[in-house]
């Protein structure tokens, strides 16, 4: 448990993806079976046991400490698990008994699986007695089910794969057939065993991805070779159904990286009653109309999928490819043939929750450009708000994993662009910790009769390394006030830095003073030439909002 606790501790402070990978891989290398397997399960969210409630932990600490001292400590630390981990008193009896070794992760996981509710307090306090500060912190994170250390299941699998110089994809493909503590997986990764076989009746297939198209590319492409579709602003998924050994139909939903997300969308499963593998987009459709990504976001990353959530955010699958049907693998067929099979498959399915992503008829690139410019008029109709561009797929393209050149292209709509004024800057993390790299920018508005800048967003990328140096220098030289790590940067009509900010969409927000929140904002370029007085106004943004429904719940960030 201590070694796992050390790992979690390090990961919780490490901002860099590659460094996180190295820490996890190193842990897998240094830690034996079965502990590392349970660690992998913990990191991928594959452990299941009844979680301890915060109330239980409060009770345990209340029995052992002065309530005033606990209150002062909790107030200072701000996190229950951490406070308890730090102030848990040393058990003097324990030292009389010759310091029993701290529990291993395997022991903890095994016990947690079988432990009755009544036995929990006693067991938990015994472990807390035997562990040190970091060990107690990790244990409490684990038992309360609140790990939150910024590690995705994908990252953990990538780290495991690196143990055997394998690709994360290879692990992803066999993952559904594996169970903790993954002895066969580690044996294969360390070259001691055969590659585990995925016997799952509804396996994931590695996805095919598109290249972003550039203007220059069109010169070499013949419009007749391509089929065009709308690019939907939803979530790419693979919906797979198959019969298990006993003949029961089983359906699974995978993310584009192969994570099993079935549990989040129980309402879609009954519609997947034919054996096959659909590649498509997950969308929310209300009253026959596809909702924007902002609305879809309300259904993502929910621990509990309530009946109300299902009713208010009806989930829908828009199909654009068929990778398998019954026993046959269709990936070696040209796209045009797969498309025909897909159309027949969706018709046979006969489910309103699953429909075809329509193709766009076009004679030449100019016609497609016009459709991309105005999806509403080009057939997307009321769904056009959820269109983020067009997709081009070669008629003869086989379904190849990864991003093969020249087969699929994405042609996104142009982003919105505004000129905003830099207002505050904050230091970044990791490599960027000596740079002011996180920027809050604002636009002009009339507040009680005077012109004022109101913050409309934050961005921390989009600029080049050279531009970062320039902005950093500007921030340091033009700081008017400091609040901890935040610098207040000069922003007056004649003084300040104008940044051209690009973003994908806008939504109303009750959290921001300006009333708007941007999606995926980034610094497009620096307008050293432009005085701040000429930057954009809030009214410009408000005009963009006019059709968007308000969204109250948090989740305005990028995806």
């Amino acid at each position, binding site marked *: 448990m201590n070694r796992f606790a050390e790992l979690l501790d390090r990961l919780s402070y490490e901002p860099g993806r590659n460094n996180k990978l*190295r820490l996890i891989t190193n842990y897998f290398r240094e830690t034996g079976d079965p502990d590392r397997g349970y660690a992998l399960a913990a990191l991928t969210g594959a452990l299941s046991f009844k979680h301890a409630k915060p109330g239980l932990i409060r009770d345990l600490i209340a029995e052992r400490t002065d309530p005033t001292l606990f209150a002062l400590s909790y107030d200072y630390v701000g996190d229950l698990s951490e406070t308890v981990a730090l102030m848990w008193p040393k058990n003097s009896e324990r030292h009389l008994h010759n310091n029993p070794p701290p529990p291993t992760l395997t022991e903890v996981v095994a016990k947690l699986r079988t432990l009755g509710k009544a036995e929990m307090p006693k067991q938990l306090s015994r472990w807390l007695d035997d562990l040190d500060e970091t060990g107690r912190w990790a244990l409490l994170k684990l038992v309360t089910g609140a790990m939150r250390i910024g590690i995705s299941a994908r990252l953990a699998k990538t780290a495991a794969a690196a143990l055997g110089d394998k690709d994360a994809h290879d692990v992803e493909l066999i993952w559904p057939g594996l169970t903790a503590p993954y002895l066969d997986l580690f044996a294969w990764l360390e070259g001691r065993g055969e590659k585990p076989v995925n016997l799952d009746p509804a396996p994931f297939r590695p996805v095919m991805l598109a290249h972003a198209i550039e203007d220059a590319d069109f010169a070499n492409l013949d419009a007749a070779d391509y089929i065009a579709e709308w690019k939907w602003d939803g979530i790419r998924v693979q919906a797979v159904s198959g019969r298990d050994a006993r003949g029961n139909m089983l359906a699974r939903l995978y993310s584009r990286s192969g994570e099993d997300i079935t549990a989040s969308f129980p309402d879609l499963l009954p519609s997947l009653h034919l054996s096959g593998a659909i590649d498509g987009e997950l969308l929310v459709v209300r009253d026959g109309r596809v909702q924007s990504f902002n609305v879809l976001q309300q259904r993502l990353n929910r621990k509990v999928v309530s009946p109300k959530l299902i009713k208010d955010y009806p989930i829908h699958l828009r199909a654009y490819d068929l990778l398998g049907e019954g026993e046959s693998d269709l990936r070696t067929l040209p796209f045009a043939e797969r498309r025909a099979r897909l159309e027949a498959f969706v018709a046979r399915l006969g489910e309103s929750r699953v429909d075809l992503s329509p193709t766009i008829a076009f004679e030449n690139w100019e016609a497609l450009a016009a459709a991309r410019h105005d999806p509403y008029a080009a057939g997307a109709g009321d769904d056009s708000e959820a269109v983020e561009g067009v997709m081009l797929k070669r008629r003869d393209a086989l379904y190849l994993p990864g991003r093969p050149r020249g087969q699929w292209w994405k042609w996104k709509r142009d982003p919105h662009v505004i000129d905003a004024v830099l207002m505050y800057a904050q230091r970044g993390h990791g490599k960027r*910790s000596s740079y002011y790299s996180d920027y809050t920018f604002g636009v002009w508005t009339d507040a009680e009769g005077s012109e004022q800048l109101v913050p409309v967003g934050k961005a921390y990328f989009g600029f080049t390394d050279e531009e970062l140096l320039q902005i950093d220098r500007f921030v340091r030289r033009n700081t008017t006030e400091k609040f901890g790590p935040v610098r207040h940067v000069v922003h007056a009509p004649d003084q300040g830095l104008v940044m051209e900010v690009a973003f994908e969409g806008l939504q109303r927000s009750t959290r921001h003073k300006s009333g708007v929140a941007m999606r995926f904002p980034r610094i497009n370029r620096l307008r050293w030439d432009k005085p701040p007085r000429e930057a954009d106004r809030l009214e410009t943004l408000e005009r963009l909002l006019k059709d968007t429904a308000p969204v109250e719940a948090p989740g305005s960030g990028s995806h």
Partner: protein
Amino acid sequence: MRPQDILTPQPAGLCCKPGGFHIDPVKPVERAVITHGHSDHARPGHGAVLATQETLDMMRLRYGENFARTTQAIAYGEELRLGEVTVKFHPAGHVLGSAQIAVTCGDTRIVASGDYKDAPDPTCTPLEVVACDVFITEATFGLPVFRHGDAADQVKKLLSSVKLFPERAHLVGAYSLGKAQRVIALLRAAGYDAPIYLHGAMEKITLYYQSRGIELGELRPVRGVKKVDLAGTITLAPPSATSDVWTRRFPDPLTAFASGWMRVRARARQGGIELPLVISDHADWDGLTATIAATGAGEIWVTHGQEDALVRWCTTKGLSARPLDLVGYGDEDGGEDEATALGEGSEA
């Protein structure tokens, strides 16, 4: 004489009227008795200064020859009559030369402990518990969540990181007087024998430690070293420098910070620290309470830090306790740019 008439808090600091001096005054006074060399305790501009030789040397290094009109060195265990009182210096285990000051008037003894720790430290004389009637304790880490643990384990953590990331430079933020030298000594004790690099602000004081016979191995100024040559190395720097443009001379720097504050995760994150090292030159909660109990004092005065919790603990143990209203301590380093991001009392 009542204890509060022997030592009285005043705006200039703790005043001993019957002895005619102040202890660690924050404003210039005629006669100052100083516990240790940290700049919140040892300030320039006093008339006469009484302190250990090391503390006087450090003040000289920091403030120049004329930091006081006259100085007098006193050794641990040496007793001196000042007016109606006697003062005696005892090791505080905080940094090199740090002392607790026992003030005896009639049959009442008060110990002003300054800053202290009971953890082992190869760079200074260990804390001596002094029996007294009134014990004046600091409370920098006066909350039961502060358990510093074994500093050697923290250094192990640093060394395993250096091993795992050999292409990166490890920057260890550490207060330049005491903490830096202790971290170096701990690294040496853990068997690390490569050269250790120093930020310019650390050089003088570290050299002074070496001149007092403290073994720190091979040290090099980081100034002028090529970027590529700093991969896989350890550099010690004042905490404020680790988030400064100064760090751009290092290849992919990994920022560590050695401080008792690193025990609390929010504090470490706030400072953008990647590798928090819980190493403190102040007593932790267990150290404070154990030392208070060991002095046998019936009355405890609590100063700079988390007074409330420590006063509360004393009360539950049947000791008479009160917070002592002194201002101006614990802000060493506070004036430096960005240091505030790392929290009050960066010297902790």
